[in-house]
């Protein structure tokens, strides 16, 4: 008694998204609690990645609003949202292909550091050189965190798929986000790699970061999530703990035809 209400870090308020005549999302409202692992599931085409794109700013919101820590995100450019503390990985891995693994992770710290073009040229302050060393050290730390420090110098596209995914996560972590959006991180991973991913997500959550997760791998989702929101045809049909969602007939019906329990 007297337990304070957990803060809502992300508030999606009656959000709708239209692409021309096609309505991808209608009237979706989700509250994400700070510190939770919150999953978004649903059949293909339900609107999950669209929702992520609205949160990270790649698409404009047609109706409704999204609030992050109380701030309205609607007209904010993507890089500003990153600065606020929203990090993201993509369904298809988007590492920078002309850079090494380490350089990729170093890019993540862009918005947390400050040297610009002129300063680079004139090496105006030792501060800039120190900053560069700091960026490198931080990046190595995050690579160690995901277990890939030994591959720091390799060119990013040369790594196997699952490791590239980890590099992407390390890059997202180096942005120092409070809220981390993971879009199908387990895609293309074998069971062993998925287990490691499970542990990694738990570790990240353990640091106090809120995780919003899109996943098709039900074992991973049910195993690690605290809250699950189910989308179908652009609407939220069910929300609750894994047990609640698993047995819900509407959810089962939404997945009908796709019923292989992994």
């Amino acid at each position, binding site marked *: 008694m007297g337990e304070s209400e957990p803060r809502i870090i992300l508030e999606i308020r009656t959000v709708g998204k239209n692409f021309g005549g096609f309505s991808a999302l209608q009237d979706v409202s989700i509250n994400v609690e700070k510190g939770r692992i919150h999953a978004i599931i649903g059949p293909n085409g339900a609107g999950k990645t669209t929702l992520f794109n609205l949160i*990270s*700013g*790649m698409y404009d919101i047609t109706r409704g609003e999204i609030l992050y820590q109380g701030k309205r995100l609607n007209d904010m*450019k*993507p*890089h500003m949202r*990153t*600065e606020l503390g929203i*990090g*993201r990985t*993509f369904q298809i891995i*988007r*590492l*920078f*292909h*002309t*850079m090494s693994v380490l*350089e990729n992770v*170093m*890019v*993540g*710290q*862009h*918005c*947390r*550091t*400050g*040297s*610009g*073009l002129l300063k*680079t*040229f004139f*090496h105006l302050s030792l501060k*800039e050189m120190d*900053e*560069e060393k700091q*960026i490198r050290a931080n990046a190595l730390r995050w690579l160690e965190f995901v277990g890939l420090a030994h591959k720091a110098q390799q060119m990013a596209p040369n790594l196997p798929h699952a490791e590239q995914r980890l590099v992407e996560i390390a*890059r997202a972590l180096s*942005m120092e986000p409070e809220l981390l959006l993971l879009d199908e991180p387990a895609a293309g991973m074998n069971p062993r790699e998925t287990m490691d991913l499970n542990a990694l997500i738990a570790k990240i959550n353990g640091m106090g970061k809120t995780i919003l997760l899109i996943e098709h791998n039900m074992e991973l989702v049910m195993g690690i999530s605290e809250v699950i929101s189910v989308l179908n045809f652009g609407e939220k049909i069910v929300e609750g703990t894994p047990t609640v969602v698993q047995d819900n007939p509407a959810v089962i019906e939404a997945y009908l035809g796709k019923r292989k329990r992994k």
Partner: protein
Amino acid sequence: MIIQQLINGLMLGSTYSLVAIGYTLIFGVLGVLHFAHGEVLMAGAFMGLYIILWSGLPLYISLPLTMIGTGILGLVIEFLAIRPLRKDFHLAPLLSTIGVTIILQNLAVKIFGGYGTKFPDPIATANIKFGPYMISSAKLVILGISLSLMGILYLVIAKTKLGKAMRAVAESHLTAGFLGVNVERTVLLTFGIASALAGAAGVMVGISFHAISPFIGLTFALKGLVVMLLGGLGNVVGAMIGGLILGMAEVISIVLVPPEINLQDVFSFGIMILILISNLPGYLAPGFDNRKGENGGLDYIISVGTVAGISMIMALSFYVPFMTGQISLAQAGFGAIGAYGAAVGSVKLGLPYEISVILGGILSAGVGFLLGLPALRIKGIYLLLLTLGFGEIVRVILINIEYVGGAAGFPAIPYQKYTLFYAYGVILILIVFFTRLRNSRMGRAMRAVGDDETAAEINGINITATKLKAFAAGAFIAGIGGGILAHFQEFIEPLMFGVMHSVEYIVFAVFGGVQVFWGPIFGAFVLTFMPEFFRAIQEWRMELYGLLLIVMMILKPEGVITNNMVQSISRMLRRS
């Protein structure tokens, strides 16, 4: 009078349409902007000229013969310069076709001379009375032929099996292949048809203008591109209508604007830039992303070395925006602004050399910033066209400004005898800059933007600011190069800063290697010095550049100097 202008406009427009249709067909089936298409038109014009001249055959035989000729030329180009390319470097086809352009145009100048050639009159001209107006029958014939060709093409695309195959391949090579379409043959035939149409257009141009030159290729290429944008990429009917519209618009503009100002070309390029900037429905179709005297025998080396130095600066000016994924054909234009700015500073304002050159650079950077703003929303091919149009506009505007000499050029610029040192001094500064940039936050941000804009933005990079800064920086460097050039040549004229020069800088950078800044430096150095050492090559310098571009795209698109190479070399140096 109006009717006559209308016919003129339609006639001009129909030639634009024929060219644009070719572009659109090729872009549709191959996703490639066939930069050399205009040169095919030029080839057709000359082919037609000589066929008519030597055989005396009437038009209804010589025209199809010419079309067959250019059709074959198109097939050859596809086979040699497009088919062997690796599919993973998306710039390869564009650069390869630029190579073809260089070869064709320079060969034509060698064979036919750089001046205009009179085109015979194969059509008996009679003046037809249309009510109170007199219309030349030749024009009607041309219009009739063009419209018929377009009509036939439309029927081919809509009603024949080949047309269906073309449409299928335009949607997806893979799917069309699965469905039993012979994709390679379809592409080949499309190329042939498009080139045949260009050949026909070439002959029409000859008949209507009464003269042709090896340089018409570029002009019509650009106009055709504008039309393609107007009508929508991959949209054949749009190209047909767009061409007619542009033709009429140009004719009207000539009528409305006083004849002293030659604004015709500015008009087309201006339209192109406006289209690109304004996101008109035009391209809804998806696709659908560098003296003399007391240096002993060293004079020659110094002279070439200076030119090489200036080339290196210009190649680097291309490299900066390239890092952020912006391919610019405007660098020669920026060079022009810097050159003229510096010249005005030295000659008209009496400023010292260094100040003039820097002012030229700043002026260029300012314009670069302004151009960079609309360029933000535009990528890939469109950006190439935007910058190309800009470069041409700069040149045309300079021709019309009497204060800086107009077409006659700006003479008597004070000679800077230490140009060599200034040039390499600038290069040294740039080397330091790029070295620092490589391992810096900004450098990574720029490369990130170049690799994947969306991912870069999610990583907190302000892509707008980054791209703008890069574009303006590239313009600044080009401006400095121009200023140094002006005080070395002592004389500048708008012709020295044409599109082909921008193309040269791209060749330097691409040949040298675009993975690391040493590439453009190496490329500019080698490609400037080599022709000097082999006198025999001098004459064929441009053709060889073109060939080089094609060969590089086929064999080694990443260029000579690669990231790996630089890293190995620096490792070796550190160990010793």
